[in-house]
């Protein structure tokens, strides 16, 4: 089975891109299952279900969605193997810029859009810099010049990745992503594989449900702003 991990900034079009790409895979007779990890609620699973493929949803609820994601990789793989599919698409929540769900030996896709701003690729960090494939969306509504500059800014952060322009609305460009998936390596099992970048560390009292603001309510791994360093 091929284990495909999809990350990306919020509203960049992760689901739209993958729905078009899975459509092409299905046309080629390749069986696919999709799993969506989200926080409190999601309706992305509905869009995957319309493709008539096995779909699972994992809601992290009060836990950091990326920690939740890592802790469930074996379970998600087990589920997909039960569905006897050739490709598993695991779409992550895509929330904070510290998120970095890429795993060695899994094809890792990061979806970002032309509207997030020229300086944002730098801020997106490991989610972008550790991806094998970067999909850039929403190119149909900005100028050619901005598309080229944005792409360059992305290349600066991740010079190794393959960069694909895909229109999430029409699916234009998704054929190339399908081919990348078909050309990616099979994975025996995700157990024992390694994250390409560590998860954000977070074990403080707020992680455990604290809601009151103030020093005396804070325990555990708490980091404070260093006001001595003025930029």
């Amino acid at each position, binding site marked *: 089975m091929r284990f495909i991990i999809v990350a990306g900034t919020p509203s960049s079009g992760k689901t739209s891109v993958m729905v078009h790409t899975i459509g092409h895979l299905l046309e080629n007779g390749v069986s696919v299952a999709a799993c969506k990890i989200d926080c409190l609620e999601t309706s992305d699973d509905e869009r995957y279900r319309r493709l008539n493929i096995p779909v699972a949803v994992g809601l992290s609820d009060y836990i950091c969605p990326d920690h939740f994601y890592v802790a469930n990789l074996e379970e998600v793989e087990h589920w997909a193997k039960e569905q006897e599919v050739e490709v598993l698409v695991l779409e992550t929540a895509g929330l904070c810029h510290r998120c970095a769900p890429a795993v060695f030996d899994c094809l890792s896709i990061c979806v970002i859009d032309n509207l997030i701003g020229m300086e944002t690729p730098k801020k997106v960090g490991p989610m972008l810099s550790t991806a094998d494939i970067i999909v850039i969306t929403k190119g149909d509504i900005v*100028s050619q*010049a901005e598309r*080229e500059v944005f792409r360059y800014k992305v290349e600066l952060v991740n010079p190794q990745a393959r960069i694909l322009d895909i229109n999430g609305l029409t699916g234009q460009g998704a054929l190339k992503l399908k081919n990348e998936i078909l050309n990616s390596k099979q994975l025996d099992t995700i157990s024992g594989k390694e994250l390409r970048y560590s998860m954000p560390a977070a074990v403080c009292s707020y992680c455990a449900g604290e809601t009151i603001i103030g020093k005396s309510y804070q325990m555990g791994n708490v980091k404070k702003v260093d006001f001595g360093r003025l930029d």
Partner: protein
Amino acid sequence: MIKNISIIGGLDKSGCPEKILRLDITAGEVLAVVGPTGSGKTQLISDIEQYADGETLTGRSILINDRPMAQNSRNYDLRYLVAEVSQNMNFIIDTSIEEFLLMHTQVRAIENPQQTIAEVLSITNELSGEPVLSTDNLTRLSGGQSRALMVADVALISNAPIVLIDEIENAGIDRLKALEILSGKGKVVLVVSHDPTLMLMGKQRIVMKNGGMDKLYQTSLKEKEILQDLLETENQIDYLRNHFRDGKCVEK
């Protein structure tokens, strides 16, 4: 260098072979793509953009200098094959024209940025009805000014060999001159439009129907005469627009 692009026909929406089996476009020429909504114009463009090799919905193949993608992928930087200018595109960066153009020239590794930027501005002003300054903010440009700047940038900085013009408005930009500048730079120019003036600006015109290439015309002499009439009418409308905007009236 790209000398010519060929589209080898595939299948229409009913699965029948396209009537036009092969369409050749030479660098420096303008091809108009026409047909009702849903007739397959976008897919045709999409096939060219993707350098299709029989795998897209239509089964078309695109040849560049008579070679399919498999033989050419090393020769061209496919990232910059097609540049696009459309009515739906806007500048979104909150910065001055000059600063942005400088950024773009750096990205494209252009040797003489200041000179190129000056040329881009001069072409922009040649095309645009309303003057544009290098200090103007990108996001505050009018539709015509934006399109003029996009065309000038594509002509001098983007450097993609194929340019797609997807329906540009006639207000505030000299479209005929825009196409002349682009084709003068040796680009293959594709124009998708529902506007008769733009349609007749092409040397050839491909008519799309039911997803397939249905008819191919060379713009006739008679049609070129009609184009001149249309341009004159547009000039008159332009004149009246400025006349009334400047607070004048027409005597009884």
